[in-house]
């Protein structure tokens, strides 16, 4: 009889292990950038293409960096949450438009000139924000995804919380849900803005 308790116990342990393991999100890879300075960039601003913006312009402020693109399906899902956020909360939300044209997959990039890509990217991004509402204080354009690599972007949308000293304090991969916003991001923003 004793031996059957052993087997039952081992089975229960296995079930518990699988229950925990399979409920973890494999996409949720901890970012080594948390606690490190936000990587520098200097990218063209969507609304004013002749100007540029970088993390050093945001020094002294707590701000959010949200990576998005018009081709990104999950971005559509999180967008209303961001629009709502921008109406209620007075924290700068900077959009990082990631590979607007070449990330789409519908274009043959070998046949597209650089300025043609740029023009198309700005058009598409502007149209998307006009259609769905613009929650962003500003959006900068990362046409080739080079800045995305510096930020370790691997699945759009991604959101970074950056503090007054310019350190990344949190990274969220995947769409922001009202729950993530309420339970993780808002308390952190309140703490950082104290």
């Amino acid at each position, binding site marked *: 009889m004793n031996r059957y308790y052993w087997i039952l116990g081992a089975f229960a342990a296995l079930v518990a292990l699988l229950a925990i393991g399979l409920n973890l999100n494999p996409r949720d*890879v*901890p970012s*080594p*950038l948390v606690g490190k300075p936000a990587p520098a960039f200097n990218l063209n601003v969507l609304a004013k293409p002749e100007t540029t913006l970088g993390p050093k312009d945001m020094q002294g402020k707590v701000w959010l960096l949200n990576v998005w693109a018009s081709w990104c399906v999950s971005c559509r899902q999180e967008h209303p949450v961001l629009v709502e956020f921008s109406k209620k909360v007075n924290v700068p939300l900077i959009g990082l438009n990631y*590979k607007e044209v070449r*990330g789409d997959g519908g274009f043959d990039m070998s046949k597209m000139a650089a300025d043609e890509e740029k023009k198309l990217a700005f058009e598409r991004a502007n149209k998307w924000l006009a259609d769905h509402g613009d929650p962003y204080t500003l959006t900068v354009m990362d046409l080739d995804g080079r800045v*995305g690599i510096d930020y370790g972007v*691997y*699945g759009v949308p991604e959101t970074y919380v950056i503090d007054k000293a310019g350190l990344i304090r949190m990274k969220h991969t995947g769409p922001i849900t009202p729950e993530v916003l309420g339970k993780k991001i808002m308390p952190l923003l309140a703490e950082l803005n104290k």
Partner: protein
Amino acid sequence: MKRLLTLVFALFIASTAALAVDSATEAALAADPVAEKRLQKLSEELRCLVCQNQTIADSNAELAQDLRREVRTMIKDGKTDKEIVDFMVTRYGDFVLYRPPVKGITLLLWGGPVALMLLGLFILQRYLRRRTTRINAEDQPLSADEASRADALLKENTPK
């Protein structure tokens, strides 16, 4: 059997041909065979974060292509392999490495299989030892009483 072998062989040829075409498009970008070989070797060590069970050499995801391009640029700039791997780790963490380093957080990953094997050996040894004592205990010569009963039984069956 012969037919099966032919089929397997044909599939093998087809798959290598497909691979060749795939890398040919990329090889066009870098004519230098030495750099290309390094790129190949490095890419096989790095995990693609989009399709997590593929290396950036295998994966055709956008990110893998971007990362290969990044590695290629760094090779061209004369960066060492270590610098290139560090570049990836500072951005994507240890997860990007197919062979994660041994440290506190990965101890279970590296030590787990060994620990399980030792546990298994321990249990096996304990089981075998118990079994031996049990067999030894049963393997006693018959007592006088048992011997006489056995004799009686044997006599009963002996044909007259």
